[in-house]
């Protein structure tokens, strides 16, 4: 353990002060600073602190490819590398960045890094001998060659290949043979993979603990192979339409340690199949069977009861339920922590009563669209499930402030509540203000919610992180003023169609330093003045939606261009921007990767050309009017696509709508 003595220059009264701490010890102090902002501040204090920070930094999210080679060498202790936001990253630059290095990096994220192919991956694997986890999800062009490159990382334990559409059984086989220590694998959406690939995977990767084969066209044969994976704990097979009860029976005969199974949207699975699955695995903890069952048989119910000790999560969305069913579930599985009954018909107060009477440990209750339930159900939940944290009550229009009052009184741990489309008013928010732990509050389509309600929330819900006021059109600037006074930690805010809001309201929002996602659709009164406040004050802004904000023009977007340097996703469809303004915007927003600009009527074809050229391959997603497809130059479109940009052409009529 070498200890370099680094002397910090210290001026002033007596003592060497912090200079007595070695680089190593400074590193120990820095390790205990959690916030990236604090690390940033320390870096700028002095050379010695900068050196200490660099020597101890463990994670890096690179935004640019040019400084990559230097950064990777400047941070020798780096273990995690996130390149998903690295603009225009391609094989050449990745390979050049890691060439000849021996890096200690263990985890690499290349999600959506569509410019990276097998050459870059080969170089990465060669330079990182300790590589354990790679995320290549959504690199839709990735295929077997990329899989083969990753297969060279013999120590690989976690691999995500979601939506790597080019991967086939061949690629999967290479990974299976090359990475025998694989523990977590996701090949969601890789629809070229068949039973053959899964079979080989199961034979070679005996350490697999978590496997996701959702949306694949694999059949029962795969389940037979998977049944031999003795250590498998999690299996997800969402929407695997070729799997049926027979397959589940084969799975149940296996010797694995399944704890979590997801068969949501598997059309051909019935409760019979689930019953046999449970028969073979009576330590199941989480069962997701949303939108697949049409009815529940007695055999399933009796088997469910055998999971009494272990079952904590049960999702049965989209099922037709009855009071007796809910009673059976309540009696059979009294250790349930989470229950999903979203869009289940037949859920009544009586059913809820039977359910919660036994399941007092429930923390998450999803009753979305269970529109028969009333305040009585809420009372029963409040009486029995004191630990409840998450309540989803979208479209439960019979409930009101009385039921919510009892919930708020009895359940101090409430963190998330969804009241979208419930028709509640300010009176409902007064009791909710008691929930000081509230993090997520959804009030979309509750048009009676006004400034008064927001003032209630602001008075005590200081931890609020997400607030959805979609179409709460009684909210005005004063409401926002009250909101930001008490809820300073808001990250996600939806004010779409709250058309009374003006620039004054946005100026208040400028004090939300942690705001990352802001949706302001159809706020016709806001202009550049309001946008400037947001751009300057909301330093963490990543996503902004200004669709149909007709009064926002070049001047408004100029402020974004100047200050919103972290912005990654922007929608300016129907805004009053000109070609010049658009060009300036797109060249300045260095982190922008996703832009929707449908119907920019003031932008000429040349304007679009110029603006898109200037993005230099940074864009990953682009949405434009389909009419432009034929008039933009083909080589521009080619250039965009080769840099990994996906273009969505839409045919929207030009109507001024509210």
């Amino acid at each position: 353990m070498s200890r370099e003595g680094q002397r910090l220059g210290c001026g002033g009264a007596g003592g060497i002060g912090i200079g007595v701490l070695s680089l190593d010890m400074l590193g120990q102090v820095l390790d205990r600073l959690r916030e990236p902002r604090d690390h940033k501040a320390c870096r700028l204090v002095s050379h010695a602190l900068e050196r200490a920070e660099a020597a101890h930094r463990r994670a890096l999210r690179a935004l640019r490819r040019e400084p990559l080679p230097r950064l990777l060498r400047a941070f020798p202790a780096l273990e995690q590398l996130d390149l998903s936001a690295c603009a225009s990253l391609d094989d050449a630059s990745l390979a050049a960045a890691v060439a000849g290095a021996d890096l200690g990096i263990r985890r690499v994220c290349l999600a959506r890094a569509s410019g990276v192919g097998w050459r870059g991956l080969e170089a990465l694997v060669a330079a990182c001998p300790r590589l354990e986890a790679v995320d290549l999800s959504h690199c839709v062009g990735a295929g077997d060659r990329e899989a083969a490159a990753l297969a060279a990382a013999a120590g690989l334990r976690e691999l995500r290949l979601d939506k790597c559409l080019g991967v086939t059984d061949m690629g999967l086989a290479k990974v299976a043979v090359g990475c025998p220590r694989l523990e977590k694998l996701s090949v969601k959406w890789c629809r070229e993979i068949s039973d053959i690939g899964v079979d080989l995977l199961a034979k070679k990767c005996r350490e697999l603990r978590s496997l996701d084969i959702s949306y694949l066209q694999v059949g029962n044969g795969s389940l037979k192979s998977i049944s031999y994976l003795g250590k498998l704990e999690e299996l997800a097979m969402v929407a695997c339409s070729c799997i049926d009860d027979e397959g589940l029976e084969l799975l149940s005969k296996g010797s694995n340690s399944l704890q979590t199974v997801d068969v949501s949207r598997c059309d051909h699975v019935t409760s019979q199949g689930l019953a046999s699955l449970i028969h073979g695995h009576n330590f199941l903890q989480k069962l997701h069977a949303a939108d697949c069952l049409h009815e529940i048989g007695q055999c399933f119910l009796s088997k469910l009861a055998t999971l009494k000790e272990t079952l904590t999560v049960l999702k049965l969305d989209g099922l037709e339920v009855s009071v007796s069913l809910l009673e059976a579930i309540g009696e059979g599985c009294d250790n349930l922590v989470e229950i999903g009954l979203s869009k289940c018909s037949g859920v009544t107060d009586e059913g809820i009563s039977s359910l919660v009477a036994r399941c007092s440990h429930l923390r998450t209750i999803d009753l979305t669209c269970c529109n028969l339930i009333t305040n009585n159900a809420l009372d029963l939940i409040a009486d029995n499930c004191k630990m409840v944290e998450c309540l989803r009550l979208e479209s439960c229009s019979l409930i009101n402030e009385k039921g919510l009052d009892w919930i708020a009184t009895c359940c101090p741990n409430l963190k998330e509540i969804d009241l979208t489309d419930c028709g509640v008013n300010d009176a409902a928010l007064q009791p909710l203000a008691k929930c000081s732990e509230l993090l997520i509050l959804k009030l979309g389509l509750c048009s009676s919610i006004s400034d008064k309600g927001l003032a209630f929330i602001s008075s005590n819900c200081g931890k609020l992180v997400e607030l959805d006021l979609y179409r709460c059109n009684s909210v005005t600037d004063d409401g926002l003023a009250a909101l930001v006074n008490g809820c300073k930690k808001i990250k996600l805010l939806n004010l779409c169609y709250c058309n009374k809001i003006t620039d004054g309201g946005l100026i208040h929002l400028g004090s939300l330093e942690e705001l990352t996602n802001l949706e302001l659709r159809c706020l016709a009164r806001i202009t550049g003045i309001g946008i400037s406040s947001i751009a300057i004050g909301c330093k963490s802004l990543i996503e902004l939606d200004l669709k149909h904000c007709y009064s926002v023009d070049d001047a408004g977007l100029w402020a974004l261009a100047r200050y919103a340097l972290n912005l990654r996703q922007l929608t300016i469809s129907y805004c009053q921007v000109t070609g010049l303004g658009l060009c300036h915007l797109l060249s300045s927003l260095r982190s922008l990767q996703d832009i929707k600009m449908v119907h920019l009527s003031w932008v000429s074809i040349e304007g679009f050309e110029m603006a898109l050229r200037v993005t230099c391959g940074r864009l990953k997603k682009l949405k434009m009017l389909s009419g432009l497809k034929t008039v933009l130059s083909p080589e521009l479109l080619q250039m965009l696509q080769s840099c990994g940009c996906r273009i969505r052409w839409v045919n929207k009529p030009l109507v001024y709508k509210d």
Partner: protein
Amino acid sequence: MAAEKGEKGAAAKEVAGERMVTLESSDGEEFHMSEAAAQLSTLLRHVIEGGGIDNGIPLPKVAARTLEKVIMYCEKHAKAAAKSDSDPSAAAGSSSDNTAAASEDLEKWDRKLVNGLSQDALFDLIVAADYLVIDGLLDATCRKVADMMKGKTPDEIRKIFNILNDFTKEEEEEMRREYAWAFDD
């Protein structure tokens, strides 16, 4: 626990049935510490196991006032550990509450210890904890310094710790720009 000035003698004294260890600070003062407490320091543990403690253990890197605090910490934590070991955990239900309350008290004591120190004393304690390899003490002291840095601007940090800004204006501007552009966190 400071020994009488000038007292020499075998380090492994038996005091009230507990084996004691003698430590000598950099400025020549002698201190006594129970062996159980000394075990909290990996360095001292190795020395004791190696048997080289007959004439006391010299610690030329640790000053007297720092060593005093180190010994306070180790004795307190050793006692707490001994108490929880001997605690008749027959009352299975309440013992978990007891241990939770006990560790909370211990944390409070740690915080009080580090809060009562001047900056120089705090840094000296970090150096000592690092040298003697006392994980808990290193954690508590480093956490205190980190807390002092939390939420502050570079200027504020410089003021608090009396650090000279050895960046030129251009360097600082360049760095700010670079970070925001290259990785921004």
